[in-house]
C-alpha cells in the first residue's frame, strides 16, 4: 500500500456544506409553515404561492434533493478520496456538479412555487429540469467512479459500495420514471399509462427513499462512524452482507404503496414479502452501527458529531421496523393515507437522515474550516431540541393517524359515520403538537447553521492546521475506512 498522502481536492465540499445548511433551513422552514397552515389555514393568505399544494412540494424537494442531495455529494466526494487514497478525478467537473445541482434546485423551486408540477411524488420537477438533473447526475457519477478507478488501495471500502449503488440506482430510477412526452415548456404526459404509470412511479418513489435516503446515507454513516470513533466497523462482514441483501431486496418493495389499487394482487404480495425481508439487512446495519458506537463512548466528549449518529441509529432501527409493518396489507388498510404515514416518513427523515447528516456536517465543518467547532454548548442544545422535536412530531402523527384510520372506516348503514371535516377537526390537537415539534426541530437546525457559520468565518484560529490535519488523518481514516482486512480482523 502506498502510504504517501495524496493532495485531496476539497474545493467543492465546503460550498456543498453551506448549501446543505441553506436547504435544510428552507425545507424545515417550509415544513413549519405548512404545519402552521394545517392549524391556521388563513396563513396561506389566499395566495396560490403559499397554498399547501405548492409549498409542500418545495418542502419535500428541498429536504430530499437540496439538504439530502447536497450533504450526500459533500460526504461522498470527501470520503471517496480518503478511502481510495486518491485525489478527486476531474475536480473542475466536481465543482461544476456542485454548482449545477444548486442551479437546478433554485430553478425547480421557482417552477414548483409557480405551480408547474408533473404531479408525481418526489418527481414533481418539469421535464426540462429532469433532463438537466440526468446530465448533472452523469457528471457526478463520472467524478465519483473516476476517483474510485484511481484508488491506490485494492479493496473498495463499504461506504463506497453504498455511494456507488446510490448513484447508479438513482440515475436508473430518475431516467426511467421521467420518460414523458412534452406538451409545452412546463407540461408533459408520462409515456406509461394507468396502473403501469403508478407502478413505475412507486418503483421510483420507494427507491428514492431506498437508495437516496437510505443507501446514500448508509454510505455516509459507514464512513463517518469509524472516522469519528477511531475504530473499525464492529463487523465488516455484516456490512457487506447487509449491502448486497439491501440492494437486492429494496428494489422490489415499491408496490406496497399501491395496496388495494388497480395493481395485480401478486405484485402487492411481492412488495409485502420484500418489505418484510428488508428488516434483516436494515437491523443488521443498525446493530453494526450501535456496537461500533458502544465501544467508542469515550469519544462523546470530544466529538459532538458522535451523539447525533448514535441517535440516528435508534431512529433508523425504528423506521426500518415500522416500514415493513405498515406494508402488511391488513395494517395498511387502516394506516394508508393517514397521518401515520407522515409520522413514519419524518421519524426516518428527521430522526435518521437529518441526524446522520448533522453528524457528518459537524465533523466536516471544523476540518474544512481549519478551526475547532465554534460552540459545543450550541451543539448540545441542538441535540436536545432535535430529539424533543422529532419525538413530539412522531407521537402526534401516530395519534392522528390511528384516529383518522378508525374514524374513516367507521360505517353506519353502508355510509361513512363521520364527515371528512369532522375528522379533521378531531385531529387538530395533534396538528398543534406536530407544529410544536416542527418548531423545535427547525430551531435546533437554525442553531446548527449559526454554529457552523461561526466555525467557518467568525472565530480566530485556535488550533493549528497540522493538528487538524493529524486529527482528520487519525488512525480511523485508513486503518478502518480503507482496509477491510483490518476491520475483519477486529470483527
Amino acid at each position, binding site marked *: 500500500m502506498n502510504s504517501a498522502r495524496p493532495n485531496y481536492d476539497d474545493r467543492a465540499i465546503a460550498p456543498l456544506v453551506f448549501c446543505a445548511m441553506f436547504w435544510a433551513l428552507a425545507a424545515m422552514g417550509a415544513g413549519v409553515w405548512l404545519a402552521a397552515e394545517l392549524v391556521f389555514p388563513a396563513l396561506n393568505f389566499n395566495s396560490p404561492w403559499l397554498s399547501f399544494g405548492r409549498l409542500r412540494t418545495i418542502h419535500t424537494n428541498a429536504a430530499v434533493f437540496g439538504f439530502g442531495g447536497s450533504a450526500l455529494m459533500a460526504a461522498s466526494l470527501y470520503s471517496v478520496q480518503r478511502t481510495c487514497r486518491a485525489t478527486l478525478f476531474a475536480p473542475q467537473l466536481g465543482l461544476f456538479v456542485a454548482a449545477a445541482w444548486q442551479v437546478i434546485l433554485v430553478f425547480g423551486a421557482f417552477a414548483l412555487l409557480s405551480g408547474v408540477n408533473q404531479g408525481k411524488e418526489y418527481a414533481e420537477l418539469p421535464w426540462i429540469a429532469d433532463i438537466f438533473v440526468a446530465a448533472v447526475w452523469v457528471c457526478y457519477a463520472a467524478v465519483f467512479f473516476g476517483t474510485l478507478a484511481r484508488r491506490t488501495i485494492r479493496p473498495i471500502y463499504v461506504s463506497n459500495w453504498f455511494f456507488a449503488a446510490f448513484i447508479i440506482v438513482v440515475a436508473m430510477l430518475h431516467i426511467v420514471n421521467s420518460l414523458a412526452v412534452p406538451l409545452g415548456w412546463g407540461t408533459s404526459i408520462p409515456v406509461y399509462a394507468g396502473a403501469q404509470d403508478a407502478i413505475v412511479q412507486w418503483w421510483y418513489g420507494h427507491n428514492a427513499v431506498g437508495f437516496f435516503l437510505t443507501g446514500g446515507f448508509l454510505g455516509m454513516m459507514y464512513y463517518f462512524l469509524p472516522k469519528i470513533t477511531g475504530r473499525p466497523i464492529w463487523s465488516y462482514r455484516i456490512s457487506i452482507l447487509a449491502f448486497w441483501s439491501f440492494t437486492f431486496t429494496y428494489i422490489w418493495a415499491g408496490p406496497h404503496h399501491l395496496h388495494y389499487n388497480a395493481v395485480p394482487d401478486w405484485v402487492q404480495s411481492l412488495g409485502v414479502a420484500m418489505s418484510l425481508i428488508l428488516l434483516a439487512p436494515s437491523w443488521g446495519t443498525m446493530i453494526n452501527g450501535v456496537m461500533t458506537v458502544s465501544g467508542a463512548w469515550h469519544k462523546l466528549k470530544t466529538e459532538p458529531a458522535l451523539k447525533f449518529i448514535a441517535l440516528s441509529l435508534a431512529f433508523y432501527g425504528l423506521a426500518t421496523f415500522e416500514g415493513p409493518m405498515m406494508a*402488511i396489507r391488513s395494517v395498511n*388498510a387502516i394506516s394508508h393515507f393517514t397521518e401515520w404515514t407522515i409520522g413514519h416518513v419524518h421519524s426516518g427523515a428527521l430522526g435518521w437522515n437529518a441526524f446522520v447528516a448533522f453528524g457528518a456536517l459537524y465533523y466536516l465543518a471544523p476540518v474544512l474550516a481549519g478551526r475547532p467547532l465554534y460552540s459545543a454548548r450550541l451543539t448540545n442544545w441542538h441535540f436536545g431540541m432535535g430529539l424533543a422535536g422529532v*419525538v413530539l412530531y412522531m407521537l402526534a402523527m401516530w395519534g392522528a393517524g390511528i384516529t383518522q384510520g378508525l374514524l374513516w372506516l367507521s360505517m353506519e348503514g353502508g355510509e361513512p359515520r363521520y364527515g371528512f371535516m369532522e375528522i379533521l377537526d378531531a385531529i387538530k*390537537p395533534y396538528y398543534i403538537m406536530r407544529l410544536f415539534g416542527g418548531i423545535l426541530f427547525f430551531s435546533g437546525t437554525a442553531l446548527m447553521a449559526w454554529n457552523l457559520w461561526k466555525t467557518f468565518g467568525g472565530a480566530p484560529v485556535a488550533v493549528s492546521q497540522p493538528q487538524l490535519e493529524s486529527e482528520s488523518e487519525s488512525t480511523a481514516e485508513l486503518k478502518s475506512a480503507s482496509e477491510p482486512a483490518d476491520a475483519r480482523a477486529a470483527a
Partner: protein
Amino acid sequence: MNVFAVLFSPERGFAAMGKNPPKPLPALFTAAWLGLIPPACAYAGASKFGWRLGVGEPVPVPPSLALTVSVAYYLFLLGGFVFAAFLMRWMAPTYGARANWGASAAFLAAAGAPLMLGGAAHLYPHLGLNLMLLAPAMMWSAYLLYSGLPAALGTNADRGMLMATSMLGVFFTAACALMTGAMLLWTLGIGPDIGFNWRFSVTG
C-alpha cells in the same frame, strides 16, 4: 424504594439508587402500583364519560367492558415493564452498567413514574387534555432516562447516554409493534367495529 425522592430530587435519588440497588421484588411492587394509575383512571373515565373519539357523541362504555379493557391495559403495562427490565439487564454489560434485575427494574419504575402519573389524564377521556398532560410527562420521563441512568446503573455519563438512546429506540419500536398488533387485531374483527373485515371489504 422511594419514587418521589427521584421525582423531586433526581440527582440525589438516582445516586442513592446506584449506591444501594433495590431488590427486584420491591421494585416490581413499586412498578405494579404506579402502573395501576393509568388503567384505573381509564376505567373510571370510560365508564363515567364514555369513549370520546374526538368527533360526534361520546361512545358509552358498559362498566364490564371498561373493566376488561382496563385489566388488559394493566397486564400489557406490567408485561412491557418486565420486558424492558429484561432488555436493560441484557444490554447493561455492553455499556459497562450494572447487570442487575433490581437496579434495572427500580430505575425503569422511577424513570417511568411521570408517565404513569400523567396517566391520571385518562380520568377525563378528552384527546386534547390527555395530550396536554401526557406530552410533558413523557418529556419528563425521557429526561430522567437520560440524566439518571449513569448514576442508577453505575456507568459513566457517556456510556449512559448511549444506553439511554438504545432504550429509547427499544421503547419506540415496542410502541410501534403494539400499534401494528392492534391494527392486525382490528382488521381480524377483534376490538372496535371499524366497518371493515379481514377480507378487506366494507361491512355494516
